[in-house]
């Protein structure tokens, strides 16, 4: 198995997803199954091949570096679970 319980905990931490103890083993098993299966990619000879980074060859468009949108504070806060006095509210971050 390529993914053990510690790896699941580490990855979940990196992904900011709380994982209960009883979930660790099933995740380890499923993630291992998937990663063992994608292992077959290693048999492909990719010598001299550049990684493909865009589905269609294109150069990103450029535009004038100017403000085209803004002044929409209320729109931006409208869906926040907790917004106060024009800000997103979160638990204390800095002591």
């Amino acid at each position: 198995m390529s993914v053990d319980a510690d790896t699941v905990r580490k990855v979940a931490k990196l992904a900011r997803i709380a994982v209960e103890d009883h979930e660790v083993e099933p995740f380890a098993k499923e993630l291992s199954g998937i990663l063992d299966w994608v292992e077959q990619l290693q048999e492909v000879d990719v010598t001299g091949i550049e990684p493909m980074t865009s589905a269609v060859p294109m150069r990103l468009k450029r535009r004038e570096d100017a403000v085209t949108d803004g002044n929409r504070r209320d729109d931006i806060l409208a869906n926040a679970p907790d917004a106060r006095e024009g800000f997103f509210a979160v638990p204390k971050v800095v002591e």
Partner: protein
Amino acid sequence: MTDLTSLTIADARYKLRAKEFSAADLTEAFIGNVAGGDALNAWCEKTPDLAREQAKAADARLAAGEAPSLCGIPLGIKDLFCTKGIRSQAGSNILEDFKPPYESTVTSNLWADGAVMLGKLSMDEFAMGSSNETACYGPVVNPWRRRGDETKLTPGGSSGGSSAALAACMAMATTGTDTGGSIRQPAAFTGTVGLKPTWGRVSRWGIVAFASSLDQAGPFTRTVRDAAIMLQAMASVDEKDSTSADIPVPDYEAALTGDVKGKRIGIPKEYTVDGMSAEITKFWEEGAEYLRAQGAEIVEISLPHTKYALPAYYIVSPAECSSNLARYDGVRYGKRAQLSQGDGITELYEKSRAEGFGDEVKRRIMIGTYVLSAGYYDAYYTQAQKVRRLINRDFEQAFEKVDAILTPTTPSPAFGLGEKSDPLEMYLQDIFTVTVNMAGLPGISVPAGLSSDGLPLGLQLIGKAFGEEDLLNTAYALETALEFSATPEKWW
């Protein structure tokens, strides 16, 4: 009066102008079907009042003359498209009650043409799934059932609400998105036409992102002509999406001549796999034969890296998903978990994401996080991106010899809800469709016929990048020859 809800867009367009009925009549008929279709669980939000308002406006526009093709046409919209002030949750609890303050470019284009919105359609959570079973609203049920059997079947996924609603005559056309097959597989499972355009043809602005280098929106329709009409309206050059192609949108419907004389159609030998149903092989051969009979030349081709497309996809798409879904933090929108005394910002993130995401989404975020993490990046992600280049090269070389490629859409027809519990087994659903996303090409699924137990099967045509005109025309010729006209028997 004939049943308004089984008409094609092209028919309705004519009849609306001939004043056989009004957009209000048409919309009312669909609202009735939507209200009576709850057993299928296709809709996650119904908007009958908005629909009536839009229909009224459409009637005024039709009366004034010169209305666009979609004027007064009732549509269903996949939950992945942001619709202003209307719940848009991407099938996820983490976007609980999210009401976007903006409208996606695609839906803006549709409303600008006078289309009518009946509501939002269920989908697999964040479009991750092939059976619509990961939707936070519960599974959608396919209107099709096996002959003499009441087993509930999947309408496919991730755009399962879109395929089921269309097949059950609850909309005249629907929108979907396709990252690995999420339009074409559900279309094949429901006897409908599903088109995934070239990546960059349709703006992704305002569509909840899953895997940005693969996602592309497209229509579900009853016919290829309707797909051309819908694509015409959906596609645009959009400055809000810097990856939307700077290529003018051609007149797709005008390309439908049905003439395929001299066209070369490729049959890839790698698309014959174990466990493929005998009927799909038969339909595939017949489809090729029909095109040959109309003057096309059938050419055997090879796409040697086909078998690596699915594993490469399951590195690239989770990697992009883990990055895209990092934005769901319980702060800016959507769900925030109840916190305990002393919990800080990290617990807020971790608990909100644990409660908000379903298991399949968590799996993919974790796979993506893993393959992008230090020490694994080159072995997994870079390798997959290199293999992706080889898959793309296979297609480039094939398209030097052929104009389109014909394959089955799926190896087998719709399966029962709950039948596939292993994630890997589910992933194999996309074996014939995912290659197209990896290469960014356009693909269309056309209904081919019924399996021995009475379920629809689809054939897929793959075209050149931005070659939708030619692709739609070949699909039109195929559709004309296949003469598929079966509809599900109403049981719901």
